[in-house]
């Protein structure tokens, strides 16, 4: 046996964390390598989008709400947490509905929700926007920095920056999308895809399924996460999403600008677009010097390749987002040691 190792990408940050937590890489045979992909919502949010959120957060009367992990990601002029220390009203929420509730209780302030996340999170935001419209809450808006994972996976495969033999597909995203979007990847790129859960046994089973598919040269999509994922996905959630949002060009950290990989408000819901209310302009941000987050997100590099890792960049003083997020590859490496 002197073949190249099989290189499988776990797309989702929650899988990255689960793999590190269970120590799965340590018990895999040497012929199988796992790469971390671009599925951490905090990590793929570009510095430019963070700067834009900060600019909105500086507007008079604005309460900027966001998920906790997002607070500590450095933008080019500091993080949202720094902005909070300056005295701006930046609040952590656990769901978009919390932000809407703040808006309802403080009618004289403008509550902006910084929306990040993938196909999993966006439908809940769409539902919140519909709720806001139904209740006539006008002081509520959203910065739509959502991402769609499939265009990113295609871009990753087209770039050929890294060899990927198969995908461990994001379980939570697949609950919404179902298995059909992966068929396209299988047809076009001939890579097997397995949709699996987050228990160590789920992940090991998924790896086994991919290895078998590669050995028999029969790439296909397999749902191993049958307790949560159906081939058709959650149709209702996708309807909500499509009612409020439409695909749009988006900028990804590490992957650059990808067509139809983000979401924008449909015309009928533009009142809720924070970027229309505050058309702020910020200079194109630069990535922090020496930070390899972009390469880590594409699976090209690992945190061990980064000179800042564990030295200048720690969970206490993160330089890049992959060290901040609880789903980030660098945080997983740091906490659980690889």
């Amino acid at each position, binding site marked *: 046996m002197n073949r190249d190792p099989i290189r499988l990408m776990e797309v989702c940050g929650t899988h990255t964390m689960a793999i590190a937590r*269970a120590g799965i890489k340590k018990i895999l045979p040497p012929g199988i390598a796992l790469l971390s992909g671009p599925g951490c919502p905090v990590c793929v949010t570009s510095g430019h989008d963070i700067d834009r959120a900060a600019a909105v957060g500086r507007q008079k009367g604005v309460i900027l709400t966001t*998920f906790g992990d997002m607070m500590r990601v450095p933008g080019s002029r500091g993080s949202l947490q720094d902005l909070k220390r300056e005295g701006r009203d930046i609040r952590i929420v656990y769901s978009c509905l919390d932000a809407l509730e703040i808006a309802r209780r403080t009618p004289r302030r403008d509550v902006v929700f910084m929306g990040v*996340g993938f196909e*999993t999170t966006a439908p809940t935001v769409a539902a919140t926007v519909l709720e806001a419209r139904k209740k006539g809450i006008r002081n509520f808006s959203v910065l739509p920095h959502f991402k769609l994972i499939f265009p990113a996976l295609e871009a990753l495969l087209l770039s050929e920056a890294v060899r990927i033999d198969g995908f461990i597909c994001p379980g939570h995203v697949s609950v919404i999308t179902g298995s059909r979007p992966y068929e396209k990847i299988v047809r076009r790129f001939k890579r097997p895809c397995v949709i699996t859960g987050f228990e*160590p*046994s789920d992940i090991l089973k998924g790896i086994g399924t991919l290895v078998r598919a590669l050995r028999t040269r029969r790439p296909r999509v397999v749902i191993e996460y049958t307790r949560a994922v159906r081939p058709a996905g959650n149709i209702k959630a996708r309807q909500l999403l499509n009612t409020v949002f439409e695909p749009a060009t988006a900028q990804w950290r590490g992957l650059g600008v990808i067509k139809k990989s983000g979401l924008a408000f449909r015309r009928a819901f533009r009142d809720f677009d924070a970027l229309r209310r505050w058309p702020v302009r910020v200079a194109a941000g630069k990535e922090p010097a020496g930070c390899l987050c972009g390469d880590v997100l594409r699976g090209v590099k690992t945190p061990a390749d980064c000179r800042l890792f564990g030295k200048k960049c720690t*969970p206490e003083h993160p330089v890049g987002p992959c060290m901040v997020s*609880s*789903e980030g590859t660098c945080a997983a490496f740091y906490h659980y040691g690889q």
Partner: protein
Amino acid sequence: MARDERITLAHGNGGRLMHALVDRLAAHFSNEILDERADAAEVRIGGERLAFTTDSYVVDPLFFPGGDIGSLAVLGTVNDLAMKGAQPLFLSLGLICEEGLPVRVLDRVARSIQKAARRAGVSIVTGDLKVVEKGAAHKLFVNTSGIGVIRYFNRLGVRARPGDAILVNGGIAEHGMAIFKARHEMGFMADIKSDVAPLNGVVGRCLAASKRIRFLRDVTRGGLATTLNEIARVSRAGIEVREEDIPVRPAVRKMCDVLGFDPLYISCEGRFVCCVDGKDTAKVKRAMGPQARLIGRVVGGHRGAVHLFTRVGAGRLLPMLEQDQLPRIC
């Protein structure tokens, strides 16, 4: 720590940053008793050995499933004394109220304090009340100090030794998840209650059952992982634990899964870790009650560190808590 560094919430989460800050402050007051860094100080007055401790309580919300700030303030301090092998006797009670706090809330907390004190067999013998302007405190802060007589001083060591068994007295992460549930009104997560409970009774039974108990520590902020690291650090020994042996109730595990939390870092208020000579494992486990589990051993290798063997059989470091865990986004 840089000169211009400010306090963040991570300095109070029970994890690594808090330990560094406490070390820095404690250096000002260094003395033999303090430097032991036990849950309670052991002091001698006349011929009597006493345990003495203090703790402040700032929990929000004030009332949560299974308890409230009052029961927590009594039992947290009682448990710190119990970890010294002491019988807790007397508590002081300091209350800091925010202007505007309804008096009936204070009444309700007082009733809970009395109930918890009776349950633990202690009396509140002195107290203090302050009121601060709205915004200068959040609703109600409580401080308690406690004093107790050390009954089993010759039976309790100050260090765990290689070969010792490590036991925990019940399911972990219940307090932290109950608080989270109450704070975020997650009504759909039924059947999760704080484990807040007095430990002096069960500790007494353990100490009566074995003369070879080396170390006791209650699991609080930073969760079991942090407590185990503290024990490894103080004992200058290594610890190995098996993930599948660590008790986590199914409802708690499910809630942790949904939110993306690691239960090993979630707080408890009625759980403690007991390190006992391997020979007395069965006796002490019985004394610790039906929920007690043997979770691992103290080893000679990897001094000062904790190793976890995961469900799939891989070994990895189990570090102290760093930043507080946040719910995952997707």
